[in-house]
């Protein structure tokens, strides 16, 4: 395995993060308008949910007071929310390969850029179509106004009158307690959970990303007061990409959690999650272009761990652990079969290849000074525990990152959300620079985050 391949992968990996940076959050002033509740009723700090907001979501965007169906709304009520984030930021990466007189990519420079910027625009619309039938549609644009469907789902709630029977179909947010779609941070690397997208250097598996919205069907059940929650989703292994582009493979996402009443401290919640599945490693190709739907050579992957939401009054800690594993064919980017000789380049597994495994830990403390001012910190550390190839340095691709910031909402009404946001993120990926040393990057961001 040559060095360039490693750093190309590393750079692509980082680029992914930058472009995936501004995530879509389901913070809906439309809901606040409908119910006359302030953002803070459902959100610990917009857009992250608190237990009441979680219950509202689990009930299918219903307060369960017989006034949820659209028939009860003022005719002028229209459940649409726009969200956009105008910012100034400064991004710096220390070792970027550059072309020199000696040839392509033979040098390394630090690149720092800054300026005013805009995230994409999200159109959120969601709510109920009738009692116990809910929906959510989120066309989301990137910063060039190129749209995609981030979320499109309908849900049958409380089937047979039971809160334990809810089924949704479509493209939706996975049932993560700490949802990346509700992340409080905005920077390229800090605006996502690294743990939800990690794969080791050289690993090409893009299907196990629990931070992305996925296509599938989800069963969800919860107790009346939402203290106990379970969910199981069957997903297409295509990372939410529409149009059956991959093969006929599925994955599952399972989550369960239990909350405990601890008096003045608050409601503590502990749970676990697991994503297990198979995804294709190879495609038939036509003229060198993969033919959609022809994915084959399905190999397995898994990510599972514990989650915790620990509340100590105004201070809380969101914790996620992960043990991840990718099949050796993913981990070495090898195509296992060659069923149509001459069509697909055959791949041979490198000698001694093993499944890649890793362990990660995420802790995100919040200090909620008031519903209008929250201080945010985060640390994530991911260590590869087994590289696919023994020759790869054991710490290559490890990630350490921290983020600090705050969100201040100078006004808080039931009509709109507006936050002044300030954040700093630092990330180091071990031995991911072109020269095989550590690659670090940082970003400072100031801006507005608003929805209406």
């Amino acid at each position: 395995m040559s060095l360039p391949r490693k750093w190309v992968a590393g750079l692509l990996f980082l680029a992914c993060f930058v472009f995936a940076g501004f995530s879509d959050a389901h913070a809906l002033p439309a809901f606040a308008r409908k119910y006359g509740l302030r953002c803070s009723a459902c959100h610990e700090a917009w857009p992250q949910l608190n237990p009441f907001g979680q219950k509202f979501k689990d009930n299918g965007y219903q307060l369960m007071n017989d006034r949820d169906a659209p028939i009860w709304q003022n005719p002028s009520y229209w459940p649409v929310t726009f969200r956009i984030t105008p910012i100034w930021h400064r991004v710096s990466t220390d070792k970027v390969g550059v072309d020199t007189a000696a040839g392509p990519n033979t040098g390394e420079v630090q690149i720092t850029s800054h300026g005013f910027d805009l995230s994409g625009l999200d159109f959120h619309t969601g709510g109920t179509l009738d009692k116990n039938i809910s929906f959510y549609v989120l066309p989301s644009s990137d910063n060039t106004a190129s749209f995609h469907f981030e979320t499109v789902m309908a849900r049958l709630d409380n089937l047979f009158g039971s809160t334990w029977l809810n089924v949704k179909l479509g493209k939706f947010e996975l049932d993560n307690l700490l949802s990346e779609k509700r992340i409080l941070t905005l920077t390229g690397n800090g605006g996502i959970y690294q743990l939800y997208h990690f794969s080791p250097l050289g690993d090409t598996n893009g299907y196990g990303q629990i931070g992305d919205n996925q296509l599938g069907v989800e069963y969800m059940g919860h107790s009346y007061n939402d203290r106990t929650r379970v969910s199981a989703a069957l997903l297409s292994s295509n990372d939410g990409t529409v149009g059956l582009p991959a093969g006929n493979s599925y994955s599952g996402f399972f989550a369960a959690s239990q909350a405990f009443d601890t008096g003045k401290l608050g409601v503590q919640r502990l749970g676990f999650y697991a994503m297990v599945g198979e995804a294709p490693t190879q495609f038939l190709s036509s003229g060198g272009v993969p033919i959609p739907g022809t994915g084959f050579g399905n190999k397995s992957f898994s990510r599972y761990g514990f989650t915790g939401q620990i509340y100590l009054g105004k201070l809380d800690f969101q914790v996620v652990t992960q043990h991840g594993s990718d099949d050796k064919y993913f981990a070495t980017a090898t195509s296992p079969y060659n069923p149509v000789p001459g069509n697909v380049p055959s791949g041979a597994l490198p000698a001694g290849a093993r499944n890649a495994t890793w362990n990660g830990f995420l802790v995100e403390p919040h200090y909620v000074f008031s519903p209008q001012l929250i201080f945010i910190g985060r640390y994530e550390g991911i260590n590869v525990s087994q590289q696919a190839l023994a020759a790869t340095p054991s710490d290559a691709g490890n990630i350490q990152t921290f983020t600090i910031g705050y969100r201040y909402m100078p006004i808080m009404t039931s009509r709109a959300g507006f936050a002044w946001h300030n954040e700093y993120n630092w990330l180091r990926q071990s031995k991911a620079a072109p020269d095989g040393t550590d690659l670090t990057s940082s970003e400072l961001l100031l801006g507005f985050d608003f929805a209406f």
Partner: protein
Amino acid sequence: METKFMKSSLLLGAASLLLMSAVSWAQMTKYQEDQRLNMEAHVGKYTGHAADAQANYRRYCVGCHGVEGDGQGENAQWLDPQPRNFTLGQFKCRSTPSGTLPTDEDLYNSVGRGFDRSVMPIWNQLTNQDKVDLVAYVKHFSSKWTTEKAGEVFPIPAEPEVTADRVKAGQALFQKLECWKCHGVEGRANGPSSDTLQDDQNRPIKPYNFTEGSRPKCGSTDRDIYKIFMSGLDGTPMPSFIDNVKPDEAWDLVFYLRTLQPKNAYNMKERAIAKQLGLKPIDPNAPAPAAPAASSGGQP
């Protein structure tokens, strides 16, 4: 150059951080501290303190009930029914007589139960302690709680077995007490007086429609329904019947009211009996049945 820029941007960040927190602090101290913040509430083993509920009240309640608890939060103008004005010290759901303050437990149950057909959500995901603290905070808005005690909880006898006789007796009471004047002979909220009803603020108000399947205002158990008509819903046209219905007869009425509701978890037996009896809606024009002993009513 590079480090200089780094420094200045860090400085900028720090400065804005300080500025923003200062602004928000100033905003927070604007909130007028109330001298009644030492108000307490007692429910079971929990003691609630009004002062401890300030943050939660601001987080969850203020949009409707308002900073001053007067029910004039920013959303009040859009809401029907209107949010409760806590400064009046008047509450619908009580286990105490009409005109008296509810018990802390009554308020606690209301917070955790929410109100169907209003925007008041079910706050059952809060901790018990949080809810009791909020009850204390609700109380602190009205000086009534410093001068008056909660009313005396009226006793409720143990619930008897549902029998056909009791259901029939309940129907006779429904006719005699003229519940149908507002609630209609079939409980469809279409009685002759139903469209003229007004609440205390002279806003139109509708009687409960038993046939709609939504939960009664103050809870869905038999005991809750018992309490609703015995205590009356203060601030609404629904009067107290405790002077006119004997404790045991009240259960008959509960059983009959159950037959008006569509099938739910609580009325299997009553509906079966009604079906067996071939129970017909009352005829308001029929001569009143010979007054049963219930007419003694009066002061117990």
